[in-house]
């Protein structure tokens, strides 16, 4: 396994040394690493006062261990991590599996040295947001109602922030939307800045609505529900399989399944399924040349008018208007 020690930071002075440590180079906003390590891209950007970001879309061609030791402890890194493959976070001998179907959102204090191991063949779509602690505090001053929630992600013993959780379905689609943009276009920097704002806003909204309750769920139940989510996404083209079926797949009673699903995703299984179907239908309309009828058929909507009604409900405009004025 390849080993490399590096640092991150809100100020982008880490970029050069990062590229150097991995025998790569910096070109514009890209860090280009040798193909032996990974193919794909890493894009970094200074977003706002006290906030910067790195967006990655790549495939690892080797096993690698990143040891992160930062020089400053004045920021928090927020990782939206949609790795498909194996990715492990190790801090103080405690391991956490990260990735799309594991913990896919984590908050890590910059003062904590840790290892991050990715296995060869892992496909990574990931956005790291580096944000100064003073920016977070400033924000809390303006919104005192959020103070208690922030305390819940602070570890008071060490006065550090560490949290592993799952991103909302909305956040997931914010990332997917960003992923669909062309990184070479000059507008990409705005798309990325926008995504960063949306993700932060979405998290704050979830905090105020008390939707973040993952911590109170036991680990096995959490795994089962995540598996069930994965099943629904994989079968997004088909009709909703029904609560009874899903519950039995997860070895739970229907009522336990429903309660847990809602607790973890903030949505009922049915709403989760339908929302994703609709987002998929929009993606198909944008990215393919399928007609509305074809999309509705492909995704097995009961009938076209039902599709039209739900689309309009969710996006505010009907599919016909949508494609007309794309």
């Amino acid at each position, binding site marked *: 396994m390849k080993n490399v020690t590096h640092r991150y930071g809100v100020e982008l002075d880490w970029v050069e040394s990062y590229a150097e440590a991995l025998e790569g180079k910096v070109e514009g906003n890209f860090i280009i690493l040798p193909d032996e390590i990974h193919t794909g891209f890493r894009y970094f950007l200074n977003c*706002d006062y006290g906030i910067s970001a790195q967006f990655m879309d790549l495939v690892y061609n080797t096993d690698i261990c990143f040891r992160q030791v930062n020089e400053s402890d004045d920021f928090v890194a927020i990782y939206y991590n949609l790795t498909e493959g194996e990715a492990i976070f190790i801090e103080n001998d405690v391991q956490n599996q990260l990735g799309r179907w594991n913990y896919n959102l984590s908050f890590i204090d910059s003062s904590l040295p840790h290892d991050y191991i990715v296995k060869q063949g892992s496909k990574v779509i990931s956005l790291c947001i580096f944000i100064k602690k003073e920016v977070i505090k400033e924000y809390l001053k*303006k*919104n005192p*109602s*959020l103070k208690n929630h922030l305390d819940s992600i602070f570890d008071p013993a060490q006065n550090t922030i560490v949290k592993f959780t799952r991103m909302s379905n909305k956040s997931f689609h914010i990332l997917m939307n960003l992923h669909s*943009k062309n990184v070479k*276009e*000059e*507008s*990409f920097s*705005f*798309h990325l*800045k*926008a*995504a*960063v*704002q*949306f993700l*932060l*806003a*979405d998290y*704050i*909204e979830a905090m*105020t609505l008390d939707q973040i309750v993952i911590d109170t769920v036991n680990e096995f139940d959490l795994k089962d529900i995540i598996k069930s989510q994965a099943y629904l996404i994989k079968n997004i083209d088909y009709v909703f399989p029904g609560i009874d079926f899903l519950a039995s797949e997860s070895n739970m009673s229907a009522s336990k399944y429903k309660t847990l699903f809602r607790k973890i995703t903030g949505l009922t299984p049915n709403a989760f399924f339908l929302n994703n179907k609709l987002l998929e239908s929009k993606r198909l309309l*944008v990215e393919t*040349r399928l*007609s509305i009828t074809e999309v509705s058929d492909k995704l097995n909507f009961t009938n076209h008018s039902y599709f039209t009604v739900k689309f309009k409900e969710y*996006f*505010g*405009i009907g599919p*016909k*208007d*949508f*494609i*007309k*004025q*794309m």
Partner: protein
Amino acid sequence: MVEITHKYSLTSEWHEELTEKLIKLGGEVVNRNLVMMPKKIADGSFYYTEVIQGLSVIIWDLTYKEPILVKRLKTDDDLYIIHYDFSDEMNLIHVDGVKHKIGYKANLGLGVFDNGTDNVFQPMVGERVFAMRLLVAKDLLKASISKDFVKDSNKNRLKSGRNKLFFYDHIDSESKILLHVIKSKTFLDPGFDIYIRGISLQLLAKFIDRYNNFVSLPHSISEKELEAINITKDYLLDNLFQKFPGVILLADLAEMSISKYTSLFKKIYASTPSSFFWREKMILVDMLLKSGKFNTLSDVMSEFDNIKISYLTSKYYTQFGKNPSENFVEAPW
């Protein structure tokens, strides 16, 4: 009629100035970003924030109580104003003395203006006015609104030349979805400030993508066809007081066969030329009814050529679910 004048600048100075003016008229400052309009002028408020260097946003959600002209005076700050109108009804923007309808229903919800020219915004009275403006430093858009674009858009969008950019267009679907989401939020939501920054950046990105690449509409309508259809649409909008000119004349204008013309028009506006014309006509009727400039209902109706009042009334009823008399505002003199 009430008149408010203001200017725009890249930094928040203009906002402070306008806020002071509004306070004198009875407005209220809720916080640094949010100002309630004077109660006698309008119900509602507007929100302003700086997003990044060179980009700020204003969003307003108001119902005006009396006719008003919002005059924007030109300044030397090098910026473009991108106006998104998502109001329930159509509003008017006057540029160089010419009135342009802007709004979601007109299919023309997007307007782009140069800060180097004046314009006047004339919102509907008694209807929810929901609009958003991005103030964008020209540097940020330099590459996007290139000379080619201005030249190109001259043909179908640019309405007044002399290098002072001004054009309008429909709002693209993705942006519409964003506006729809923001319309359902309140200015006091805890994440609103961050959220509106996200929206502004995304709209700007979308704007750049759209006018940088000038990709033609999906589902296969060429720019040229779109342009031809637009000419006929403008013709219809310019002749709302007249009789419907007939598809033969319109197809002729677009230099197409009748069947091609009607099917293309339908594809773009999701209605036939005639129902489009009637819908717009009724919106105009509605505007005149509520304008408070006519003594009687038949005065309003007689503005329209060659048409039976009963027919007009029934059309109006189908569209708005009310008789014209119910919405009529008599002139105060």
